[in-house]
């Protein structure tokens, strides 16, 4: 019987001893929780920004701060120096990648993101920006513009207002699976591409390229209650346009202003005219003056009936004195295959040019580039005997 008691007593003693000593041992065997605590070091904003596939426009533009990139680009940064984004690097810096396998996935992801951000940053164009929509305002933008910038009431690219809710998720990331095995793979730190980093500073410093020639201030879009949702029918040409513009000079002035340029004019035309001869083009009256001068000398009285049916295009160049340059008058095209008739029609046209330009055409000298080379089509249809 005592044997049983002894056994029982020994068992209890052992149990008590295990309870006393075993708690300490158990506390030493707790699974490492460092991975969880390390993750929490990364700020939510940085984490969301780095893991987001579609960063907000301001984030995409503002992330690669020039000083950081410039510091990294001349020399190859050390692995621990590379990820310096939004303070996340402070926690990562104290840990060597090779000695923290639990963080390898995250650091690798951060580094990759960092590289991706660096490589993808150069051209943040407006169409790539999420939420930018091509819409036509219901009401003229100019009517709603309170910035003082004159905006034509036509099509425009309007950026929608920023979302009121933050794009960074403040919910802490879940803890990794405790059963995950440690990776023995040693991953080297990614080095930013030098070529990519070289192109960044210039692009990050400037605003994204405007897809439209109109300036739509962001402040205006923020205050806009809503983006336009439908397109309005373009206004028809007023029937009484001729009455509104009474004189030809007004029309010419308007045309000259529109084509010449100013910043308030149609931007595509202005952009295209950069390759054209400098200065405003000839006005209608100036062209009419040239045309009338030649018409007064275009004598069809000596043309044969066949030649009166031929339309010829004659090219020539003028000197700065307005006189046709010798040897530049040439037949470009003719509507008749008959050499005799075409020749006669060309001769009459050539005489008209030479006679009318004998003393120099009355053309503005400052627009010489516009009237230096001329192609004139002589069409005798109205003069033809019927």
């Amino acid at each position: 019987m005592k044997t049983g008691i002894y056994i029982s007593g020994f068992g209890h003693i052992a149990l008590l001893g295990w309870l006393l000593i075993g708690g300490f041992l158990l506390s030493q065997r707790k699974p490492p929780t460092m991975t969880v605590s390390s993750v929490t070091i990364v700020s939510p904003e940085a984490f969301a920004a780095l893991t987001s596939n579609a960063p907000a426009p301001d984030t995409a533009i503002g992330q690669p701060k020039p000083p950081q990139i410039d510091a990294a680009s001349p020399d190859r940064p050390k692995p621990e120096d590379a990820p310096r984004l939004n303070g996340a690097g402070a926690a990562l810096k104290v840990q060597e990648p090779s000695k923290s396998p639990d963080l390898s996935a995250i650091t690798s992801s951060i580094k990759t993101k960092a590289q991706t951000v660096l490589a993808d940053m150069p051209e943040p164009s407006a169409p790539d920006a999420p939420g930018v929509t091509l819409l036509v305002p219901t009401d003229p933008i100019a009517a709603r513009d309170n910035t003082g910038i004159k905006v034509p009431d036509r099509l425009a690219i309007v950026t929608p207002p920023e979302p009121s809710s933050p794009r960074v998720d403040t919910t802490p990331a879940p803890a990794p699976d405790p059963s995950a095995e440690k990776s023995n793979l040693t991953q080297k730190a990614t080095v930013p591409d030098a070529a990519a980093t070289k192109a960044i500073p210039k692009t990050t410093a400037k605003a994204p390229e405007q897809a439209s020639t109109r300036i739509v201030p962001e402040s205006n879009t923020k205050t806009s209650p809503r983006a336009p949702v439908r397109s309005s029918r373009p206004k028809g040409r007023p029937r009484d346009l001729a009455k509104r513009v009474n004189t030809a000079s007004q029309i010419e002035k308007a045309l000259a202003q529109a084509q010449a340029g100013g910043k308030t004019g149609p931007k595509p035309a202005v952009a295209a005219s950069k390759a054209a001869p400098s200065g405003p083009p000839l006005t209608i009256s100036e062209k009419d003056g040239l045309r009338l001068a030649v018409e007064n000398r275009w004598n069809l009285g000596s043309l044969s009936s066949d030649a009166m049916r031929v339309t010829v295009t004659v090219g020539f160049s003028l000197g700065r004195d307005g006189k046709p340059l010798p040897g530049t008058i040439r037949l470009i095209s003719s509507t008749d295959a008959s050499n005799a008739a075409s020749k006669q029609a060309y001769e009459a046209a050539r005489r008209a040019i030479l006679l009318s330009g004998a003393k120099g055409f009355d053309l503005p000298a400052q627009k010489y580039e516009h009237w230096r080379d001329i192609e004139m089509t002589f069409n005798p249809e109205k003069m033809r005997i019927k």
Partner: protein
Amino acid sequence: MRSLAIISTLSLFLTAVFAPQFVAAQTTGPLRIEITEGVIEPMPIAAPAFVAENTAAQQLADDLAQVVVSDLVGSGIFRAIPRKAQISGISNFDAPIQFSDWKAINAQALITGSVSVRLSGKIAVKFRLFDVFAQTALGEGLQFVGTRADWRRMAHKVADSVYSRLTGEKSYFDSRVVFVSETGPKNARLKRLAMMDYDGANLQFLTDDRSLVLAPRFSPDNSRVLYTSYETGVPHVFLLNLKTMRRKKIGALQGMMFAPRFSPDGKTALVSLSDRGNTDIYSINLASGKQTRLTSSPSIETAPSYSPDGKQIVFESDRAGSQQIYVMAASGGEARRISFGNGRYGTPVWSPRGDLVAFTMMNKGRFHIGVMRLDGSEERLLTSSFLDEGPTWSPNGRVLMFFRQTRGADGAPSLYSVDISGRNLKRVNVAGFGSDPSWSGLLK
């Protein structure tokens, strides 16, 4: 709504893409001007006195130049700059041209020439034509050699060359006109055939005035003349050889024969034959005398004229109740009417170019000379008077000659010419009265 948005977007895109290119093309290319209005006025030319290379040619040189200028100016296409306005003359035919002197007086063409009388008695005429503003010669220089009696023809030849080079079409100065010369009071008018240069010079009579003659027509080779004569008491058609001045009666048909016209090959003549109140058109082979009736309607068909290719005939007929113009095959058959305007149409003549028909139109008591296309389109009346009749074409088909009768007891016919545009209407300088002109082809 969605589709509208798509269209708007697409339009904006296309505008943004292509508008700059369009504007750039507009602004970067040469300045393009279209000239649709011009002037129709004579071209100013300068023709200084021809250089006389020897003393015997002194007068000829001056006369030749005057005829050349008269031809060109008379065409209505050129205007001669007076010699007194010319800054410099031409003293040496081969000397370089001072174009600035001619350019200063606005001469667009310059004609220089020289005349020499050779020991054989023949005269030689040389000329050159220059484009003053281009300061180049227009074509090669030409020389004509002939007898002194032919000096006017040589002058016409020079004018023809100038005309062709400046207008690009054939000329008509070296040609002749056969017509009916009339003398005496209106109630006792004497008529006879006469021939002259186109400008009225070198007039010569072909028949005497013992019998009435009408409607002479030149043969295509200018060697013969068909005409109507009353010498047998009734009108009949005769063929006159201009070289031998021998004539013969053509055909053996009974009735009144009139309104003859040569075929383009000169082998056949078309005539009108009026028999027992019906008038029809016949063709007569001039060599064999074979006669072929081309029309057989009970109406009056007359004034036939061949097309230049000889395949068709234009004539006048009152088969529709009034006098109108019709076209049919040269062998006869169905005819189609081509005149549909107000009034009566007669004396149609086919243009040597083949594109127009000249006619006389009578409407509301006035007579007109006009032209129309073969389908009757583009009809235009060129003249209007108390009596205009009998148009005939110049060799190049650009000028019409006709005769105009004045009103009243002293009324008399005169020859006139007019451009087919209706411009340059002028009286031909003929001694006496003249009617029924027929223009020859260009002389060889």
